[in-house]
C-alpha cells in the first residue's frame, strides 16, 4: 500500500489512476483556490477561497443535443453558477465534469474570470484534467 499526500501525484504508477492537482490565483483581490481530481473519462473540480463544499453540480454530454446535460446534486438549486460552469466545461472537454463552486454567486464578473483561469490551466496542464 502506498499513500500519496496531496499535490501532484501524477507520478504514481497506474494505468488510469486518479490524480490530484491544486493551483491558486488572486482574482479581483481575492485568493481563489482550485482543486482538480482527474478521473477516468472526467474530472472533479472544486473552486473556493475557504475549505467548504457547499454545492456540487454534474454535467455529461448528450447524444441528442449539442448542449450537455447538467444538474445540481448538492446545495441550493437556485444558484445556477455551478451547473452552468459544469455544462460549459463538458462542452469544452467532452468529459463528465463535477463542479463545486464556493465563491459569492452574486459576483458574475468574478465567475467569468474564474472560468478564464480554469481554461488557462487546461491549456497549461491538459494532462491534469
Amino acid at each position: 500500500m502506498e499513500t500519496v499526500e496531496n499535490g501532484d501525484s501524477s507520478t504514481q504508477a497506474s494505468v488510469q489512476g486518479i490524480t490530484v492537482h491544486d493551483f491558486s490565483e488572486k482574482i479581483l483581490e481575492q485568493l481563489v483556490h482550485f482543486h482538480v481530481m482527474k478521473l477516468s473519462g472526467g474530472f472533479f473540480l472544486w473552486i473556493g477561497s475557504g475549505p467548504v463544499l457547499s454545492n456540487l453540480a454534474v454535467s455529461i454530454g448528450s447524444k441528442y443535443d449539442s448542449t450537455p446535460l447538467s444538474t445540481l446534486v448538492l446545495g441550493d438549486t437556485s444558484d445556477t453558477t455551478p451547473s452552468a460552469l459544469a455544462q460549459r466545461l463538458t462542452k469544452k472537454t467532452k468529459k463528465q465534469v463535477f463542479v463545486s463552486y464556493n465563491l459569492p454567486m452574486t459576483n458574475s464578473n468574478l465567475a467569468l474570470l474564474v472560468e478564464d483561469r480554469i481554461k488557462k490551466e487546461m491549456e497549461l496542464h491538459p494532462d491534469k484534467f
Partner: protein
Amino acid sequence: MAPQPVIRSRQMEKAINGIPTQVVCTEFSNYIFIVLTQYGKIGTLVSITPDTRSGDISVPMFTTKVLLGKDEPLTHVYAKNVTTFVSQESGNRPVLLGLSLKDNSAATMKTVKDMIKGCQVW
C-alpha cells in the same frame, strides 16, 4: 510562490483480488469526500449524514441518500458500513462517497475500510 492548497487530500491504490482499487479522501470543513473505485470514476454518489439529535443513547444514527446513480438498498448498506467511522472520527461531519466497485463482497469491504483508514485526512 504557489500558496499551500486549502484542502487536504490523500490517496491510495491497492489490488484487491487482482482488481486495482483506488481510494481518495479529501477534507472539507463541512464534508469528508471519499472516492472509492475500481473503475477510476465517482460512480454512484451517496451522502451519509449523522442525525443531529440530543439523545442519551450513544449509538448515532445516519441518513444515507443516493444523490446520483442507481438507488439500491445495498448501496446504502455499503455506504454506511464503510463511512460511519469516518464521520465519527471527524467530529460528526457528513461524508460524501463516490462508490463504483466491481466486487461488492464483504471481504473486499474490509480491505477497503482499511484503505480509507490509511488515507485519513480528518
